[in-house]
């Protein structure tokens, strides 16, 4: 699924990464625990989270995540968006809750990550 389709499905605002909207995403992970993201997620993944701080962006940077969806309409500060921009991470903002946003993407065929 392309980032563009994720944004459409969630009626999301694109906060940065406009030139990456055609990026292919192969799976998704929803969590407010960055420790779990770092332990379980591998590449080409979109992270859905209600946690908003610099370390969400750093986590995405370290784990090579392509995109982040902030849920529940909580808009990150400008410096957080800037950090994402510097690291070529696409950031979307949806009014949906974590549960609803995840459900919408799952119903459209975006799988969860495979635990090994």
């Amino acid at each position: 699924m392309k980032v563009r389709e994720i944004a459409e499905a969630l009626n999301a605002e694109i906060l940065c990464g406009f030139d990456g909207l055609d990026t292919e995403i192969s799976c998704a992970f929803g969590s407010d625990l960055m420790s779990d993201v770092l332990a379980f997620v591998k590449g080409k993944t979109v992270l859905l989270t209600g946690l908003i701080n610099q370390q969400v962006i750093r986590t995405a940077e370290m784990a090579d995540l392509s995109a982040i969806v902030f849920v529940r309409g909580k808009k990150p500060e400008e410096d957080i968006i800037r950090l994402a921009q510097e690291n070529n991470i696409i950031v979307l903002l949806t009014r949906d809750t974590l549960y609803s946003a995840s459900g919408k993407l799952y119903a459209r065929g975006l799988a969860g990550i495979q635990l090994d």
Partner: protein
Amino acid sequence: MEQMKYTFNVEKDDFVLAGQASSNIKKLLRQLGIDSGIIRRLAIATYEAEINIVIHSLGGCIELEIDPSYIRVIAADRGPGIEDIDLAMQEGYSTATDKAREMGFGAGMGLPNMKRNSDRFYVRSEKGKGTVITIEMALKAGA
């Protein structure tokens, strides 16, 4: 390629700058054309070590050593040290504060995840003195 060494300071409780050392290290290794799979694993392990310095220690530094045959990251802090390393290595064991948890950490996953993401991994710690984490990645077979 000659051997290169870099040192980055890590401040305790600085949740804004946390991750900058790991970010610098990741960018440096990318410039050197190191394999992206190796960079990713090392970046994750280094970041976990950096966050631990921020949330559990009194502050410290991260040293990066690049050699033709290996990359070594040494994360050292000034205490308080880990009393029982075997216990700390267990998934789910955490003494993280509420503040660290609010920032998205404290699941007790960091140390085992560092180990999983390194080719070689060592923890040395002395109560009252500090902790030294060594993470090594081989760049050539047998290194």
